[in-house]
């Protein structure tokens, strides 16, 4: 007997409603035409028609563009600092793509390492991820070169595969297994369904046409660190905006600022980007004044420094940076152009 289940796409609302009792269910939504994971309204399942990844990455739900860290007030006794209460989140993210799920695993490492980040981790705690395999990758996708694939279920609890009118449902983690056990309206999957899913997964893998070779990329980058001519050429058309880093599911740099009015205020953190000239600006000097140093930093952080610290490349091949870059600066072209070690 197979352990897979399945459900007709038309009936998705039925299982989402069940999960909605226990979790805050997030589904792919459009907000001003810019898709992101947002709270399910309880009835609309039109998002099922869209078969591609959201514009805004899932990191937005755990590490938002802006969040309050604490507030403070001053009275005659002095200051009083009021921490933001973490709250109970219990999120369920429905139809997260393998690349975004892998990205969360990377962010988990970064936010846990050394000192734990209470804001990200409190949102992340208890989150259930229902993955949906991709059947129509973009021409900008390159997950297969980053140790993943359109059907990679490594970092999700339950994996869905589109087999036509139905989704095949596979349990991946213990949490996923328990959830499936207590979810009603699921049908048993037949051998034929599982065979179809296998076919779909293979076909999707082959649809990813963009490929890069990351073998020894960290060593190659180390060797050309001082090669100013190379980096100037690679960075020439970059305009130093924050689009690639902000829409990247694994980028996590942030800024901290205070806002206050009279005797009260709050401290916020907000997305920041190593691409900005002022990112490393100090009053007396700026080590990355020139654009080529900043572009070098971004590439080297993702493909050399992060792997040195944590063992994995901080890029999941989602391709958002390529699609959304105002000048079509392409990280896969940059990686392929890194000189060989002589």
């Amino acid at each position: 007997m197979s352990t897979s289940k399945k459900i007709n796409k038309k009936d998705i609302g039925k299982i989402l409603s069940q999960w909605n009792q226990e979790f805050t269910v997030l589904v792919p939504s459009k907000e001003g035409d810019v898709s992101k994971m947002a709270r399910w309204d309880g009835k609309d399942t039109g998002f099922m028609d869209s078969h591609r990844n959201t514009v805004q990455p899932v990191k937005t739900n755990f590490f938002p563009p802006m969040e309050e860290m604490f507030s403070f007030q001053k009275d005659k006794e002095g200051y009083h600092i009021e921490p933001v209460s973490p709250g109970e989140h219990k999120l369920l993210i429905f139809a997260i793509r393998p690349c975004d799920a892998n990205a969360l695993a990377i962010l988990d490492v970064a936010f846990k390492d050394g000192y734990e980040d209470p804001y990200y981790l409190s949102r992340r705690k208890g989150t259930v991820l229902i993955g949906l395999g991709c059947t129509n990758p973009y021409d900008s996708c390159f997950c297969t070169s980053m140790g993943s694939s359109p059907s990679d279920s490594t970092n999700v609890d339950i994996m869905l595969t589109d087999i036509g009118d139905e989704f095949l449902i596979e349990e991946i983690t213990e949490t996923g297994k328990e959830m499936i056990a207590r979810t009603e309206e699921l049908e048993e999957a037949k051998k034929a369904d599982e065979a179809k899913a296998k076919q779909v997964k293979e076909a999707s893998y082959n649809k990813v046409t963009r490929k890069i070779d990351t073998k020894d990329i960290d060593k190659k980058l180390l060797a050309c660190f001082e090669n100013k001519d190379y980096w100037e050429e690679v960075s020439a058309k970059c305009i130093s905006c924050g689009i690639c880093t902000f829409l990247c599911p694994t980028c996590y740099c942030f800024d901290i600022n205070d806002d206050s009015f009279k005797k009260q205020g709050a401290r916020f953190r907000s997305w920041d980007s190593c691409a900005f000239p002022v990112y490393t600006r100090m009053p007396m000097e700026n080590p990355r004044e020139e654009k080529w140093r900043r572009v070098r930093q971004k590439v080297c952080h993702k493909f050399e420094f992060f792997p040195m610290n944590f063992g994995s490349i901080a890029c999941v091949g989602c391709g958002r940076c390529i699609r959304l870059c105002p000048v079509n600066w392409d990280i896969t072209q940059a990686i392929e152009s890194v000189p060989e070690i002589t």
Partner: protein
Amino acid sequence: MTVTNMSQGKRFFASDNVYLPHLAIIEKIIEETPGVKTFHFNFKDEKLRKEFSFKSGQFAEYSVLGVGEAPFCISSSPSRSDHLEFATQQVGKVTNALHRLGVGAEIGVRGPYGNGFPLDFLEGKNLIFVGGGIGLAPLRSLIWNAIDNRGKYENIDIIYGARSPGDLCFKYDLDTWDKDKTINIVSTIDKEDKGWSGRVGFVPKVLEEVAPSASNAVAIVCGPPVMIRFTFPVLIKLGFTPGQMITTLEKKMKCGIGKCGRCNIGNLYVCRDGPVFTYAQIKNFVSSEY
């Protein structure tokens, strides 16, 4: 040689949240130079005051609530703990706000962060301190720590300089160290100045002239980036190996705990893996990024 692993140090969190500052009161302000002040402070919370500990070379993030937060090393020595100190130059939004504060004002403090100087490694060795301007602040913590534990270390040599006599920081310390027979101190200023009868010359140049021996020695360097960049080649010339050269670096910081990303040199974060580094650790990236 390994630099001390910072995660072994003690942590002092408010409400389990590493980003929340503790409140502290400023008890004394010393104007070191026009534009540089030392602040003496103590935590408001009695218990924290007693329990707080840190290592020389570590830093803390100081807040003027409503204005912002900035990192400065703790310039007092752990061996003298009736109060804590930090020194800062007035250069931007947060430091301007700090310099406007008076005694009794409340600031936020969170820390200590960073790895601190490797005391075990330094024990039994000749210590050569090379400092410039306000860069003396972190060195000062270690110098006093060494003086208070004098038996643990061999020779203590200090070469310290600033742009002009008025820019020399911690003059009260310089005087005291000058009188201490167990310490050799050479002060210098960049250019001739009437009223100054001591040495004249940039710190790296004076270092070359003084030419301390590299045998069983460790050089500890701190100052403006340009000074550090020119000091390393001099030390190499004098026979110091990359493992014998320690520096404490400064980068733009926000979180202070290795999360926000901006203070990195290569794969190392100045706030988490530093600010104390050996030259061996950073030499791949130092000429280009620092």
